[in-house]
């Protein structure tokens, strides 16, 4: 574990000054860049086709702004309370999440074949999104506890996986395969950094393959989900349509893009779910390679900063929290952008900080709050 602490040069410095001085300002700036870009493309994707006299549809934009404000407040609160002191709260949060996930199975609203939402008047609320930071916290707490001994024992790895497995299982019942994949990325990142041995990784992978095999053959996955997944490999399948249209949109953008609001693929609604899962196609079409690359660079820099925060973390708990957030952002960004470009299977995963959607936006901002919290409390 000593290797992990190699970068903590200012190990002995004391915390000084107010919170807003101690946080990582570049994470804030990068996030603002992404959020601004997101607002613009979400607006472009949802304003509608305008002719003379038409009033653009601002409803998505306005709601997205509200989500961001709520998310910033939630993230700020998350950042403010010292995570080390709040550690005792983790089991409570975990229990609360389990209750919510059970409740959504019983009382939730079904949409696109998945029972993942609580319907409210203003916006639908997706508990599996809010369970992401809880997942990060609970795994970080568990593995930072058990890795304090010399090496991570297999039984502890399995217990950690069981903790994550309960949440994943409940989400699978909805069924929401995409979110479970994000959970998987969080688990993988934390477990790897926590120092799991190669042998254990192989055993876990074997179990995972068996579980997936059982789910597929046991009819646990719905046909539509299988179709979407296999569309990745089968160019003739009907589910391939979305990806084709997204690729056409991105290609249509060329180097500099068609210009904002000018994307024909966007305006003709040829790409389904373009304001959420396929938002990158709008970025690619209207802002071109310049815009797409800028977005990727912003994400890359943000991830570098989070990686650095993990490095500088005062303790293993904080480090693993940052690693969890890092893994989540990395996976979601790669999966979402990759899916838009036909590199990854079609799963309903939003692009963090960009895609329209309240639960996802608030969750991501809470996660950034967590990271800031770790950074702000990197000194004893």
């Amino acid at each position: 574990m000593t290797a992990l602490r190699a970068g903590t040069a200012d190990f002995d410095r004391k915390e000084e000054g107010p919170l807003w001085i101690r946080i990582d300002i570049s994470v804030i700036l990068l996030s603002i860049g992404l959020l601004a870009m997101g607002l613009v493309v979400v607006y472009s994707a949802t304003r509608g086709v305008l002719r003379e006299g038409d009033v653009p549809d601002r409803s998505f934009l306005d709601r997205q702004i509200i989500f961001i404000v709520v998310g910033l407040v939630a993230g700020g609160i998350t950042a403010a309370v010292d995570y080390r002191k709040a550690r005792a709260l983790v089991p409570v949060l975990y229990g609360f999440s389990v209750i919510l996930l059970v409740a959504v199975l019983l009382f939730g609203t079904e949409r696109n074949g998945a029972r993942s939402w609580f319907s409210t008047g203003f916006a639908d609320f997706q508990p599996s999104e809010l369970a992401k930071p809880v997942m990060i916290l609970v795994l970080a707490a568990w593995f930072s506890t058990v890795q304090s001994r010399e090496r991570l024992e297999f039984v502890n790895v399995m217990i950690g996986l069981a903790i994550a497995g309960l949440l994943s299982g409940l989400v699978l019942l909805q069924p929401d395969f995409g979110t479970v994949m994000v959970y998987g990325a969080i688990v993988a990142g934390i477990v790897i950094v926590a120092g799991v041995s190669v042998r254990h990784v192989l055993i876990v992978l074997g179990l995972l393959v068996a579980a997936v095999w059982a789910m597929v053959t046991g009819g646990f996955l719905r046909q539509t989900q299988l179709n979407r997944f296999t569309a990745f490999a089968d160019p003739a399948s009907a589910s391939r349509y979305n990806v084709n249209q997204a690729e056409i949109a991105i290609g249509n953008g060329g180097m500099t893009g068609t210009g904002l609001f000018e994307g024909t693929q966007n305006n003709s609604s040829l790409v389904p779910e373009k304001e959420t899962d396929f938002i990158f196609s709008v970025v690619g079409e209207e802002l071109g390679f310049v815009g797409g690359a800028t977005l990727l660079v912003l994400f890359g820099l943000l991830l570098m900063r989070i990686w650095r925060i993990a490095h500088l973390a005062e303790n293993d708990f904080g480090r693993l929290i940052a690693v969890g957030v890092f893994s989540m952002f990395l996976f979601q960004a790669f999966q979402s952008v990759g899916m838009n470009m036909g590199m990854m299977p079609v799963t309903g995963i939003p692009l963090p900080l960009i895609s329209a959607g309240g639960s996802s936006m608030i969750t991501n901002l809470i996660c950034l709050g967590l990271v800031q919290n770790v950074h702000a409390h990197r000194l004893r």
Partner: protein
Amino acid sequence: MRILGVVAVSLFVALFGRLWYLQALQSEQLQEVATLNIQETIRTQAPRGRVLDVNGNVLVDNRLSTIVTVNPEDLRVALVDQGIRSSDDQAEFRREMFTELARELSGSGQLTKLADLERAFNDPSFRQFEDIPVARDVDEELLIFIGERPNSFPGVRVEQDLVREYPYGARAAHILGYVGSITGAELEAKADRWTLVDPEDPENRLPDPFGKPYRSNDEIGKEGIERFFEDDLRGIPGTQVIEVDNFGNLVEVISSEAPQRGSDIVLTIDIDLQVELEEELKRALDRAREAVPPDPEDPPFTAPAGAAVIMDPRNGSVLAMASYPTFDPGDFIDGLSFDQKAALDDPTAHQPLLNRAVAEIYPAASTFKPFTAIAAEVYNVFGWDFVEEWDVPTSDPGYWDLKSCGLESDDRETALALGCRKRNAGDATMEGVDLEHSIAFSSDTYYYKLGEAFWIAPNDEIPDDGIQQIASQFGLGASTGIQLPGEKSGLMPTAQLKQQRHEDNPEAFPFGDWYSGDNANIAIGQGDVAITPLQLTNAYAALANGGTVFSPNIVSEIRPPERVQLDENGVIVRDEDDEPIMIEFEPIEFAPRVVREIDIPADIEAAILDGLLGVTMLEKTLIDRPGGTAYNAFNEPEEGGVDFDLINWPVAGKTGTAQVGNGTDRADNAMFAGFGPSGTTNWGTAVSEPEYVMVTILEESGFGSKSAAPFVARMFDLIATDEVPKALRQEEIDEFYGVTNIGEIGDPEQGPAEAPVEGADG
């Protein structure tokens, strides 16, 4: 932790690589696809050309028909907006909507069931974004009914569509044919109208700029003129390429080409004569059915079907062509109903769709004899061995015992048992039979003798197939090349052909050898000689005009429509008054098509003409011999004939009574072939150039002299006296019935209305 960093960097490198590939390397191709994506091509149906008769009467026209269409995508979107999302609920809504629609249609007088609408809606040849016609020819009131209830009938539209109209109803149905939806096979056959971008990818094709591209559910000519002149009649569909937004709303018109009408087809048919021929054909068959065979043991005259053709022998133009039973091309406008199809397919209906004038083959029987006589003169059979010269009267004992049998005695039983005795119809005996009288009395024996002589004479003197050669020159047993689809060629049997058929298919043709008897049968037009009524008409036209064989025309010209002039951008060019500048095209005319000139020896031609005139003029009571076979038909009104002015409008003709099958289970076909006005000084008639030739074949109707000849006599009488009535249009007939029907319903006391006399009972 370094692992995570490495993973992150490599994933981002991959994303950048892919982004570069799509936006820099693939961009050009994908931009093209994106352009096509937002374009939609709308096609507008172009009116088909019309079909006109020789006097400019319109036989096939177009009219507007009100149709009800459903757009599945509009329906689906509307239902989703109303919160009806699951496909089961949507189907349920559709069922209720169709039930309502069917009720409304039935209420307006068009009986419609829910299943009819569902079937039309589920036609797989339509795409999701297309308007699917579910009901045609509906009451225009429906436009208001549906228009007032957009929420009850989402995606349903009432539109106007062009359909075929037949002003004369079912008249000339076999000539005109009908149109219907293009089949998969037909679409495939028209595939050469497309330019394939990539031979490996048949889906990726562009319309041929010079063609008239088809797509599924397009209208195409199925039979008759509609089919034969499909390429001319079909208009060029208009196309409009537009850019659409996500609501399918028009953003911009990218290019637009107006639909262009198809060419009009002008027939050689005279509709007045055509209607009369159809009527008289039907009447002739009705009369034949009433007649009783002379021997009660013989099969009855069922007279189920028949055909007749009238042609101008001077140029080969078909003036009228009738086939019975017939059909109504109007039935095909909305597609045949199940009952209509069943009625047409019913075997007892005797194939109403078949144009028997060109597409059915019959034995030629006695109408063939003039051609045997010409062959005998051409190949010097007259005067050879046992054959007398053509002008020498001989005695006809009523039979001919084949020489090749080598019978010693004259014993009837032996000759019959050996199949060596060929007999006259009814074993009739005649005296003083030379060529002229052999035709007028229809002596079979005279021709059996000629037929056998051809076969048994040494080949270096007389060719075995001399009769067939001459008959073939007259076009018998071969397609005439008329502008109609489905023409049959018939058959002119020869020894070689018989052998060939036997070798190719011994089961169907158990005998391969050719005997004297075969040649004797050929000489009287039996024994597998198979001709179409049109071929026989055409051959008699050559007899009438002195040996010119035509390829008959039923079309006189193709008239391309005026077209608007377009500039290179596809915009209509206009003059200073803003009127479009029209380009006229020269019509394509069909000149008479001479196939060959036959040099008929003049003396034999005169003798044959005298014989053919004798058929109608030779009065039995004048001589101690049977009279001309069609004398009664042209002279005796009380015998079912007409009182014909033969002196001023002489008719040369030949009866035929053709044995079909084995001659015992079915009655004979009755035939007559003749032309006029014709004449010779020998008969003391006017001598004029024949203007009309007519042939009729009445199936299973008995003697040609009794049923076929009177029919021809009636037609020629109308023509000669210039009394062919003007054909009535369907609307004129309907008008008459419409008035009387109201009278009937309104006033039951008045009794049933009388039908109009002419042309209304079709």
